[in-house]
C-alpha cells in the first residue's frame, strides 16, 4: 500500500506586528541604521563609480536591512552590518552588470615610496593641500577594486582592521597588506599628478 509522503507542516503565519512594535522597529532603525546613510552612500559611490547606481545600491541595502532588522543584534556594530549587506548586494547585482571582474594581478603592483622622492623638496607634504577633492576621488576610483574597497573602509570610514576583515571576508593580514599597497599606489598617483600640474618639481626621471 502506497503511503503518501508526509506533508510538510504548514509554517505558522508570520505574526502581524502590532502598531507599537512597528513604531519601535522604525525608531530603532532610524537611530541605529539610518544614521549611517552618508557612509553607505560614500562607499556605494566608490564601489559603483556612478551616482545613480550608488542611489539604487543604498536604497536596496536599506530595504534589505529593514526587512532583516530582527536579525541584527541591537547596539552592536550596525555600520559594519549594513556595509556587509551593501557589499553583498554590490557583488551579486551591480558588479556583474557594471564592471568586469578584476583581472589585475595585485601582487605585480610595485610599491613606490613617495616619501623617498619628496623628502628633500617637500617633506611636510604641502603639495597635498593643492590637490582638490575631485582629483583625489578620481585617483581612488582608479585603484583596483580590492584595494579601493579596503582603503575606503579604512581611510574614509575609519573602520578597524578587524571590522574590515569581517566585511570583506578576508584575514586581517590581507587587510593590512592591501591597505599598505593601496595607500602607496594612491600616493604615487597623486604625486605624479602633482608633478604634472607643476605643484612640485619631483625628481628627474
Amino acid at each position, binding site marked *: 500500500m502506497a503511503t503518501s509522503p508526509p506533508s510538510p507542516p504548514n509554517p505558522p503565519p508570520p505574526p502581524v506586528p502590532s502598531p507599537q512594535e512597528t513604531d519601535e522597529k522604525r525608531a530603532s532603525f532610524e537611530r541605529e541604521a539610518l544614521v549611517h546613510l552618508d557612509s553607505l*552612500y560614500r562607499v556605494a559611490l566608490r564601489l559603483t563609480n556612478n551616482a545613480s547606481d550608488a542611489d539604487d545600491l543604498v536604497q536596496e541595502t536599506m530595504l534589505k536591512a*529593514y526587512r532583516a532588522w530582527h536579525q541584527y543584534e541591537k547596539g552592536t556594530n550596525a555600520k559594519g552590518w549594513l556595509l556587509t549587506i551593501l557589499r553583498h548586494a554590490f557583488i551579486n547585482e551591480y558588479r556583474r552588470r557594471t564592471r568586469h571582474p578584476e583581472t589585475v594581478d595585485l601582487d605585480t603592483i610595485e610599491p613606490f615610496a613617495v616619501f623617498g622622492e619628496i623628502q628633500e623638496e617637500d617633506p611636510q607634504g604641502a603639495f597635498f593641500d593643492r590637490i582638490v577633492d575631485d582629483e583625489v576621488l578620481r585617483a581612488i576610483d582608479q585603484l583596483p577594486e580590492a584595494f579601493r574597497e579596503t582603503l575606503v573602509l579604512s581611510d574614509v570610514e575609519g573602520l578597524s582592521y578587524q571590522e574590515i576583515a569581517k566585511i570583506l571576508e578576508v584575514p586581517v593580514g590581507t587587510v593590512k597588506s592591501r591597505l599598505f599597497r593601496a595607500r602607496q599606489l594612491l600616493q604615487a598617483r597623486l604625486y605624479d599628478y602633482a608633478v604634472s600640474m607643476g605643484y612640485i618639481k619631483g625628481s628627474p626621471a
Partner: protein
Amino acid sequence: MNCRECVEHLYEFLDREVTPELERDIRVHLEECPPCGEQFDFEELFLKFLRARCSSQGAPPELKRRILRELFDE
C-alpha cells in the same frame, strides 16, 4: 628597535592597531630618529588629507526622502 622594524609597523601604528608595548617602542625610536619621525609625520598627514578630501560627500537629500518613503510609506 631599528629603522626597518619601525617603518614596518608604520601604518599599524598610525591606524592604532599596535599593542601598547609596540607603540611604546616605536615612540622611543621616533624620538631618537628624526628621519623616521619625518616619514611617520608625512604618512600621518597623508591619511588626514585623504579623510578630509573624501568625507565631505554625503547622501543626497532626495535619496534619503526616497528611502524613508519606501520604508515607512511616507
